[in-house]
Every structure is written in structure tokens, then in C-alpha cells.
């Protein structure tokens, strides 16, 4: 027994078919109306669509959601009915976004191809790279789908994830994905270590009092993770004490770094985060209500 809400319907029922048809007709009508109306009316339609779709999420935030809801639960009252409908609408909205995203990805791939095919056609000096890119895309597509098809059609009991059952397509896909793509990703990531070094070399120079404080703080944090310095220093300061009070332990690199990070760094980052969060709230509000003239061009 399943409770059906606004977004679903019983299998093969008139209600479900009506909803499926409306799901095609309403967006098609909206799309057609957007294309055929004047820019001013288009703006109103887009603003209304924004307000309605954004309103679902706003309402979802404000309306109390059902707690510990089970799949077979039935709402007990109007409050829960609305809560159920809103919580059910979020996955629907996510599905719509995924479908639109899939179409947009196609446009993205078209952009990549148009730029690189153009380069090859014009004989640009970088055209060998473009050829390599297009060949890579097609190779990955071909072996990816072949691997998927062979895995799907594998005889019962044959586990295609095990290398002993692999054919050429699986080895090729593994080589392209794990052997090439992942390794190149790792290579790019490892470059960051060297870039940090060169950026730090330029940035950490004593040019002012602030820069000196920054450098000293950075040095303490660096020394904290250098056992060869931090351990002897800890041993040394451990000996400082007033009676039973291990006063010197406050001056280990670990404790000084913790103090700096907890007292100064965390509070500063939180202040910045507050600002960013409030800025995002204001921006989202302007977008939802379509009052942002800048982005409405």
C-alpha cells in the first residue's frame, strides 16, 4: 500500500496518465510562450517561474517537515499532508534539474568539439592537442559503452568486475580511466605542492610589522609538524614548572599552534563565513524575487 501525493499516482490510473501528459504539456506551453512573447512579458514569465519554483524551497524550509517518516506512512492531518507533499517535491525538483543538466552537458560537449574542430580545420599550431583530445573522447566513449554492454550481457554467474573475466574492452577502459586519466589527475594535484612553495616564497617576506607577525605565526605552525624540532623543544619546556604546575607545557609548538588556530584563525574564518553566508542569502533573495536588475539582462 503506497500513499500517492500530488507528484505520483496509482499505476496505469487515469490520474497518473493525466499528470504525465500535463508534465509534457505545461513545460511545452511555457517554452512556446517564452519564445513567442515580447521581452517584457518573457521577463514576467521567467520571474513567475523563478518565484514559484524558489517558493517551493522557501516553503519547504519554513513548513515543519514530518519527523522520522517511514515509506508507508500516511499523513495524520493537514499540516503533515503539506509537509509530506513538500518533502516529496524536493526529489522531483532534483530530477528535473538532472534532466536539464543532462541536456546542458550536451551543449558543453558541443562547445568543446566546436572549438577543437575549428582549430584542426584552421591548422592552428595547437591542433595536435585538439586531435588528441577528440580521439581520447571517442576512445573513452567507445570502450566505456562496450564495457557497459559486455558487463550487462555477461553470462549468469560471471562477475565482470574480476580481472580474470575481462576482455579487451575492460582492459582498454581500465587503461584509459585508471591508467591514464586518474594518473594525470594525480599528477596535476601533486603540482600544488610545488606551487605552494613558490607562492610562499614570494608571499612570506618581511616588509611590514603585519608581515613579520604573519611570518612568525607561519613559522610556529610549520615547526609544529616538524618532529625534529618540535620534540626536543617539548622536552626542553617540559622541565619548566612552578611546583606541581607544568607551566612550560603551554609553550610547546603544539599548544602555541592550537592557541593560534583556535583563538585567532577560527574566529577570523567564522567572521568571513558569516559575511559570505549573509551575502549569499541576500543574493538568493534578489534572484528569487527577480529584483536584481544586473543579472536580469
Amino acid at each position, binding site marked *: *500500500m*503506497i*500513499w*500517492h*501525493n500530488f507528484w505520483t499516482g*496509482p499505476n496505469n*490510473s487515469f490520474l497518473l496518465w493525466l499528470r504525465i501528459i500535463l508534465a509534457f504539456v505545461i513545460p511545452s506551453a511555457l517554452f512556446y510562450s517564452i519564445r513567442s512573447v515580447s521581452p517584457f512579458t518573457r521577463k514576467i514569465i521567467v520571474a513567475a517561474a523563478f518565484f514559484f519554483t524558489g517558493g517551493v524551497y522557501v516553503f519547504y*524550509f*519554513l513548513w*515543519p517537515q*514530518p*519527523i*522520522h517518516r517511514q515509506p508507508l*506512512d*500516511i499523513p*495524520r492531518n493537514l499540516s*503533515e499532508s503539506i509537509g509530506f507533499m513538500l518533502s516529496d517535491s524536493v526529489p522531483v525538483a532534483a530530477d528535473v534539474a538532472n534532466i*536539464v543538466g543532462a541536456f*546542458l*552537458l550536451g*551543449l*558543453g560537449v558541443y*562547445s*568543446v568539439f566546436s*572549438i577543437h574542430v575549428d582549430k584542426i580545420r584552421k591548422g592552428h599550431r*595547437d591542433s595536435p592537442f585538439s586531435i588528441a583530445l577528440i580521439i581520447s573522447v571517442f576512445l573513452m566513449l567507445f570502450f566505456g559503452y562496450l564495457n557497459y554492454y559486455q558487463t550487462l550481457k555477461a553470462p549468469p554467474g560471471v562477475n565482470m568486475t574480476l580481472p580474470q573475466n575481462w576482455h579487451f574492452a575492460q582492459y582498454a577502459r581500465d587503461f584509459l580511466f585508471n591508467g591514464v*586519466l586518474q594518473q*594525470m*589527475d594525480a599528477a*596535476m*594535484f601533486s*603540482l*600544488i605542492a610545488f*606551487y*605552494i612553495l*613558490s607562492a*610562499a616564497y*614570494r*608571499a612570506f617576506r618581511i616588509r611590514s610589522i603585519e608581515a613579520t607577525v604573519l611570518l612568525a605565526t607561519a613559522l610556529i605552525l610549520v615547526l609544529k609538524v616538524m618532529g625534529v624540532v618540535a620534540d626536543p623543544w617539548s622536552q626542553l619546556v617540559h622541565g619548566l614548572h612552578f611546583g606541581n604546575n607544568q607551566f612550560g607545557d603551554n609553550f610547546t609548538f603544539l599548544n602555541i599552534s592550537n592557541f593560534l588556530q583556535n583563538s585567532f584563525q577560527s574566529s577570523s574564518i567564522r*567572521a*568571513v563565513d*558569516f*559575511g*559570505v553566508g*549573509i*551575502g*549569499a*542569502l*541576500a*543574493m*538568493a*533573495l*534578489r*534572484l528569487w524575487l527577480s*529584483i*536584481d*536588475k*544586473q*543579472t536580469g*539582462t
Partner: protein
Amino acid sequence: MSYYLAAGTWANQYTDTGWFAVALTVLLCLFVLYNIALSHKKFKEGKTTFIRRIAGLNSIDEAVGRATEMGRPVLMVPGLGGLGPVVVQALTIFSSITRTAAKFANPIILCCADAAVYTVAQETIRDVYQSEGLADRYDPSSVRFVSDRQFAFAAGVSGIILRDQVAATFFMGDFYAESLIFAETANMAGAIQIASSTQTTQTPFFIASCDYVLIGDEFYAASAYLSREPTLTGSMTGQDWCKMMVIFLVVLGAIINTQEIARVTFGPGGIFNQHYINQDKQHSAIVNLPAARPAKSSDSPIEHLFNPQDDPSLQKTIVRDQNPPDRKGASD
């Protein structure tokens, strides 16, 4: 006395902090909307809002002018994020940069890591050229989708920076580990760099390697700063009100918490003169304790307010009928 905060009816956002979190959010929204209305009123009266100087934004013209003199393109990257407030804000800034570049007939390159962002960016940039009456200067390939894989995107953009020897770069949006790769590569190419990231973990990298950095909410103030449009300046004033509210709450919280700690430690009911309590807040509910116990600093109301807890007891209190007599809307 024992009560549940709207047990069985209210959602998680109401169970522990009550109406506080929701009411605060609504209040912050009202601050923004009120100031937008106020800014429009001021604008009609011919008054303007003062915005302090932001060096990074003042340098946009300088950066684009330099690129024009050198005959090299301007590169813009809206980060890895999907279509959301951050990216829309980045595109708003980029449209302003593009407007300047279009006037100088300077080539631009805008690299995207998200297909949805790519399509919106393409429309935005095309609109800018059309609104300036320079539609013939618009190059569709100037807005590019590079890749949606983080390091493939980093490699692609780095390649563009080095091959095209870009003269100015604008990195604005959500950046992650690739931020330093971009910034350092552009530095090697000798580009003037203006950057901003809403990710606080990446801002230090930008500060270390870029010429100008917009920190935190300066990123959101950028469009107001560049356009001086009343909606945006009003929104920015509203944001300042919101920040004042947050500062007030932080100070209030610190005072109340300090007072609670002082009371528990040194006050008449403190450790030295032990104070006992017979009620406690357990999993969002105030319950009578079987026996009085010494008060702790964690018993303070402010501690309860900012430490929401899930309430397993609510699970037991809700029994929804899965087979009621009237199954309206239900089927097999």
C-alpha cells in the same frame, strides 16, 4: 513539568532552537528587503550610498587596459561551482569586465567547468556585447566549456593561460585545490590577477599569489560597487544590518555564556557554594530529574540554543496510521 517542543508536529528546524533559527532567517531577509526599498526611495530623492573603496574592483579598468595595450586576452573563471548565487554573482562581475573589454575591442576568454554555467555565461556575455551595440565583436568561442573534472579543468585553463599568454585574469567563485594552479600559472605568464573565492580555505592561496583579492563578502559587494544600482546598494546596506545583528548575537551569547559560567563557578550557586538543579533539557525536552544534581556550565540556555540535538524520543511519540479507514488518495 515535562513537555516536548511541538513533538510529533514540528520539524527538526523547530525542535531544539524553537522558532529562533527560522525567525532569525526571516528577520535577516526583512533587513535586506527593507533596505532595498529604502535605497530606491533615496535614489529617487537623488541621494547616493557611500561604498568604501575596494582596491581589487578599482583595478579592473587598469587590468583590462593593460591587456589591451599588450594585445592579449582577458581570462575569467567562475570556479567549479554549479549554477547558484555564487556563480550568478561572478557572472555579474564578469559582465561588467566584459563591458569594459568590449569597448576596448579586447578579446576575452571565459572558461566554465559546469555545463549549466556555460550556457548562462554564453547568454550573459552575448547580452553584454549586444547592449553595448558591439554584437559584431562577440566571439562565441570566447565562452568555453573546458571540463567538469576538477584537474582536467585545471590543466585545460592552465594550458589556455600559457598558450594565449593572457594579460589579466579574474578568478571569482567557488575554487578548491585548483586555485593555486591557476594563480601560479597566471603569475608565470605575467598576468595581472584579481581573485575572490567564497571558500575561505582558498583565499590565503589567492592572497599569496594574486595582485588583488576580494575577501569574503566583498565578493557580493562587487556588483553594487561597480554598478551603484539602488537595488544592489540597498541589498548591501541590508547585509551590513544583518552583520550588525550577528555581531550583536555573538556579543550577547558571549555575555550570557560568561555570566552562566561565572554563576556556576563563582556565584551563590557556584562550585564553591554548590547550586543544584532539578530540571534538565534532554534531547530537546525539558524533563524533571529523578534527583537534583549540581549545575554545570553546559546547563545554560545559550548552550542549549546553539547545540541542537536530535531527539530519539520523538520517534516513539509519532505513530502514523498506515491503514486508516478512509484511505483517500491511497492505492495498492
